[in-house]
């Protein structure tokens, strides 16, 4: 073609004009900490595995998840999901059902028989973990991944700790528990059951390079309740333990549970399942001050459990109790009123907290014990070099999830100690705030409700109450994730740039700003749904 001078031009020749010189602010991609990850005691990053689950890459999702936590099927049943409490989506409609998706991934992994990774090499270092509960097993799993030889000892005949002996089977079926523990054992963790460690010094002498004490809090608190000889009183921990061992105690038709924590609720619901026609929780404060988790309480009430709020047990006798009505003072503390009533009760279950048996540490030097817990530093090491502790044995919130987190963190610390290197925990990126999101782009989508067994069926046995999601619903729920502070490749920046200055690198590779042409208008940042682009002043 004979092109007339200047009037007719070759296509795309404006690429010679670098409009990036106009810019006073530059867009920069960032990865922020999503609130779910920030809130997770087990250091999971739900946003990451939800991303994989969205397109049905369940194995990838599961593998990402178990890097932090080897118990997704258990978590999906017993975790009180602080991630959901923190979830930014709750400001838009409802929090993402992270926990439900986690359970789906866990169950799916069990069905598929996916195995945890086995370390390629071993370090030759040996670590003893005392206690096969969530904390101990989590630490064992992580230490094994890091190449250490791990031995776990537990006094009980079966592993799982409170997961087996504290949490009723209707919340956590034992086949699920067994499967997730077996998977850890399969990575080469040595499990020594029915083995009590009562002399730490002797244990160390066996040649372990480090010890992790994760013995839990197995002893029911013995609060003083005036009682007649004939009164039938049991503690909730023992009740749940005996039920778990298939040896339930006789409680009678009318059972009163004294306490307001999750254990109290578990005990009351268990009593129902053992045949009690009346299961009454006596709690000294009000529902909004009750430590038990809302969903547990709601299910208990659906099952017919009754609560006497603002009440204390003043005296227990055979067949009945004396209960005093309480009043909250201005600080919210219950005060006695002197008003009493009688309550028929065949037995009283005490659920007033648990304590730890730390006798195995007797004689170990440089330890500090406070209020029945052992003090540890930020790396979970006790005052005695090489002896670490975590879970319910140290001062913390006593949940499975916290225990798993302790185990994982302690494992990293133990690994660093064994290698004689400083433990460097990466700085957490700034939190992804809701205000930084552009929520226009998120489709309106309700929370996928987990189907539930009909309440009537629950009290007849120990079948699991809360059912899992099917694959389709799990993917749907995962897709509700807003990917706060993390690019999820929605292509918005690539699309909305009037200057074609965003380069799409391809699936999984995200994007790059072409600063030769980016004029710094800021539309990409403003229209990024997940708030993953920041505008930063140019300095030159």
């Amino acid at each position: 073609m004979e092109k007339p001078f200047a009037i007719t031009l070759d296509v795309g020749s404006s690429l010679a004009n670098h409009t990036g010189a106009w810019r006073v602010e530059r867009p920069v991609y960032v990865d922020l900490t999503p609130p779910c990850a920030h809130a997770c005691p087990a250091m999971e990053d739900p946003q990451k595995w939800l991303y994989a689950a969205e397109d049905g890459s369940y194995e990838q999702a599961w593998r990402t998840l178990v890097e932090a936590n080897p118990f997704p099927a258990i978590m999906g049943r017993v975790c009180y999901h602080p991630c959901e409490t923190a979830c930014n989506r709750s400001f838009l409609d409802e929090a993402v059902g992270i926990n439900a998706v986690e359970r789906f991934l866990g169950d799916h992994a069990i069905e598929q028989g996916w195995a945890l990774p086995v370390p390629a090499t071993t370090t030759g270092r040996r670590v003893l973990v005392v206690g096969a509960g969530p904390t101990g097993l989590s630490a064992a799993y992580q230490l094994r991944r890091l190449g250490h030889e791990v031995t776990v000892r537990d006094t009980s005949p079966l592993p799982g700790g409170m997961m087996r002996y504290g949490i009723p089977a209707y919340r956590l079926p034992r086949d699920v528990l067994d499967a997730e523990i077996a998977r850890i054992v399969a990575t080469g963790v040595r499990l020594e059951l029915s083995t009590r460690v009562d002399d730490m010094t002797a244990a160390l002498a066996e040649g372990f390079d480090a010890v992790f004490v994760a013995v839990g809090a197995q002893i029911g608190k013995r609060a003083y309740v005036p009682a007649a000889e004939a009164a039938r009183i049991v503690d909730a921990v023992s009740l749940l333990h005996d039920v778990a061992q298939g040896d339930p105690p006789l409680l009678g038709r009318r059972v009163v549970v004294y306490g307001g924590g999750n254990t109290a609720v578990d005990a009351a619901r268990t009593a129902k399942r053992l045949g009690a026609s009346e299961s009454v929780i006596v709690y000294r404060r009000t529902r909004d001050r009750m430590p038990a988790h809302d969903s547990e309480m709601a299910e208990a009430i659906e099952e017919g459990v009754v609560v006497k709020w603002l009440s204390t047990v003043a005296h227990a006798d055979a067949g009945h109790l004396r209960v005093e009505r309480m009043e909250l003072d201005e600080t919210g503390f219950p005060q006695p009123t002197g008003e009493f009533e009688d309550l028929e009760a065949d037995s009283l279950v005490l659920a007033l907290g648990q304590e730890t048996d730390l006798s195995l540490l007797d004689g170990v030097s440089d330890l500090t014990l406070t209020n029945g817990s052992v003090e540890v530093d930020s790396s979970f090491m006790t005052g005695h070099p090489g002896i670490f502790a975590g879970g319910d044995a140290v001062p913390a919130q006593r949940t499975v999830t916290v225990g798993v987190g302790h185990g994982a963190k302690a494992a990293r610390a133990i690994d660093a100690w064994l290698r004689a290197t400083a433990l460097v925990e990466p700085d957490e990126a700034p939190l992804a705030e809701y205000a930084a999101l552009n929520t226009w782009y998120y489709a309106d989508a309700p929370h996928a409700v987990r189907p539930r067994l009909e309440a009537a069926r629950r009290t007849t046995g120990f079948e699991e109450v809360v059912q899992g999601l099917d694959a389709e619903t799990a993917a749907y729920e995962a897709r509700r994730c807003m990917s706060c502070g993390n690019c999820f490749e929605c292509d918005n920046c690539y699309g909305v740039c009037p200057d074609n200055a965003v380069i799409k690198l391809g699936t999984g590779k995200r994007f790059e700003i072409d600063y030769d042409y980016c004029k710094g208008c800021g539309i990409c940042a403003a229209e990024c749904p997940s708030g993953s682009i920041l505008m930063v002043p140019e300095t030159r």
Partner: protein
Amino acid sequence: MSSTGVKFYQVGSFAVGNRLLDPELRSAQSEQGRANSLTSGHRACQGCGEALGARYVLDAAMRAAQGRMVTVNATGCLEVFSTPYPETSWRVAWLHSLFGNAPAVATGVAAGLRATGKDDVRVVAQGGDGATVDIGFACLSGMFERNDDVLYICYDNGGYMNTGVQRSGATPPAARTTTTQAVGDEPGNVFGQGKDVPRIAVAHEIPYVATATVADLRDLEAKVDKAMGMHGARYLHVLVPCPLGWGSASKDTVKIARLATESGHFPVFEAERGEVTSVRKIRHQVPVEEYLTLQGRYKHLFSPVRRDDVIDRLQAMADRNIARYGLVEEVL
């Protein structure tokens, strides 16, 4: 909304991309190998809605035409910022003739292609609102009534921005331009004037008329696709915010377009052969004030004295659009 069939996803059909969709259902803009009909290095202002709209439209049209397409461009910002000698930002076959004749040139192009046996090559003409609703209106109407095989795109930024923000027949009431200044008792552009060219286009009973904005890409692309699937005269009127003329932040270009539709100020609909066939419903209705306050051209409605009387009239216009097109979903 004409976009259909995008299954539930984090961002549904609102964002540019959707990795869960079958490739053929994805937006043209999300494709790594999109046409980039208007490429980098052009001299549009930061955050230019017209530059964005033009690439959205032409890339979609190029995809629909499988690259067999030529474009005709009226004089205006889009032409000036894209082709100052010796550089052009176009990557499509592109012809610029005059300010007021793009529809007629396109008619000739279509006739020429037919006559030379290139019936498969599609013709897209484009211009700003000045070129479309004012100076080129006779040519546009002629092209419509002859039902020439042209898809004409009007990028409406409500004024003559290239010449320094003067009023056009598409400037909305109360908006400040350099020829309708914010002075006197009735500051800004007067009420009761202006041309609603989409409705005039509908009155021509041409095969297809639609409005769209740069804030809803999937809707825009679906309309381009639909238009490209038809023959005869077709008209697409795209709202493209202009940071310079509207006195808005460059980052707010898409947001303002979104608020224009969500307030009812700019109705988004499509019509075939004289009948409105679908409307894009308002998703989260906002008062028109939310749309106005982001724009300097309406600043005089809020300071130094708040002009509730004028704001109410603008709200009434939006309400009229909502009623006329049924923009708000009926609550059953």
